[in-house]
């Protein structure tokens, strides 16, 4: 099983993602933003960071990198694409996911543990969880407030495309404790075909008890299982 990890100038979760994937026992290959070859990756991770400084808007410039052309084709062909933090912002800018991520309501950067309620298990990324499970996974961002128009939000809810919602440790609603003021406390969503996930929290930081939580590992395991299950090579084979 091989995870491709995108590296844009300004990306910094790339090494953490590699660490997590290797801990999970899988192969990693770093994908340089100037290249187009996805090197037979079964799942492409767009990691956290500040691609191009996140100047102007987070993800705005990264979206045009040569690598993103291949990632877009890969996604459209059903390949698994996982945007984490900055990766989520890039996916929205690239219109692979609806909505946008704006400045945190507090106008402050926020790095803290958060609790995510799994809202759907009908994705390759969450299939190893049970609906309603609460995962402890930290956030670290200044622009994570998810916004979209009512129609889009309704569609996301109706099609069960909200993957994670910020909740309290006990699973109840966060209300004022939201880390960023996202609409409907949305922490992560999937695309219509459910093969592209964007999430603000950092699962790669929650893969070892030594670092405070290993809940993030459940997502990496889910991906691995669903790929080996579906023997997803065909998709990668296109490249």
């Amino acid at each position, binding site marked *: 099983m091989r995870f491709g990890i995108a590296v844009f100038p300004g990306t910094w979760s790339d090494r953490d993602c590699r660490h997590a994937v290797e801990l999970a026992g899988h192969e990693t290959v770093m994908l340089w933003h100037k290249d187009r070859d996805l090197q037979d990756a079964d799942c492409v991770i767009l990691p956290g960071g500040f691609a191009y400084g996140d100047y*102007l*808007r987070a993800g*705005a410039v990264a979206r*045009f990198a040569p690598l993103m052309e291949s990632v877009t084709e890969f996604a459209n062909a059903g390949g698994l694409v996982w945007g984490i933090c900055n990766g989520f912002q890039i996916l*929205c800018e690239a219109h692979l996911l609806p909505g946008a991520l704006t400045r945190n309501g*507090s106008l402050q950067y926020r790095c803290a543990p958060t609790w995510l309620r799994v809202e759907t298990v009908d994705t390759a990324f969450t299939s190893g969880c049970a609906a309603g499970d609460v995962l402890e996974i930290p956030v670290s961002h200044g622009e994570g407030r998810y*916004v979209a128009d009512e129609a889009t939000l309704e569609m996301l809810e109706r099609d069960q495309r909200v993957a994670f919602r910020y909740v309290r440790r006990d699973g109840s609603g966060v209300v004022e404790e939201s880390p960023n003021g996202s609409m409907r406390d949305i922490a992560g969503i999937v695309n219509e075909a459910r093969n592209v996930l964007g999430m603000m929290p950092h699962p790669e930081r929650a893969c070892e008890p030594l670092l405070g939580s290993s809940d993030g590992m459940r997502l990496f395991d889910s991906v691995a299982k669903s790929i080996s299950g579906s023997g997803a090579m065909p998709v990668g084979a296109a490249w």
Partner: protein
Amino acid sequence: MTFAVEVVVALKPVVNDPQGLVVRDGLHRLGFSGVRAVRVGKHLELEIEGDDETSVRALVEAMCEQLLRNTVIEDSRIGSIRVLSDTPL
């Protein structure tokens, strides 16, 4: 010729603007009680080579759609267009 073009990018009216609220409250605290609302957007000043205003405007409009604004949440408009020099810098 070189042109100086102003572009204003602002959040769509429906998108709420926490930064604007903070600025408004800050102004109230300073005693500017007459301030009803504040919206904070971006102001870009571009220096561009081009033949004439029309072609430059068209170029900048394309830039707005592709990069300068997030079409989902932001509107943009082109402000003044001035000739900076008749010869490339």
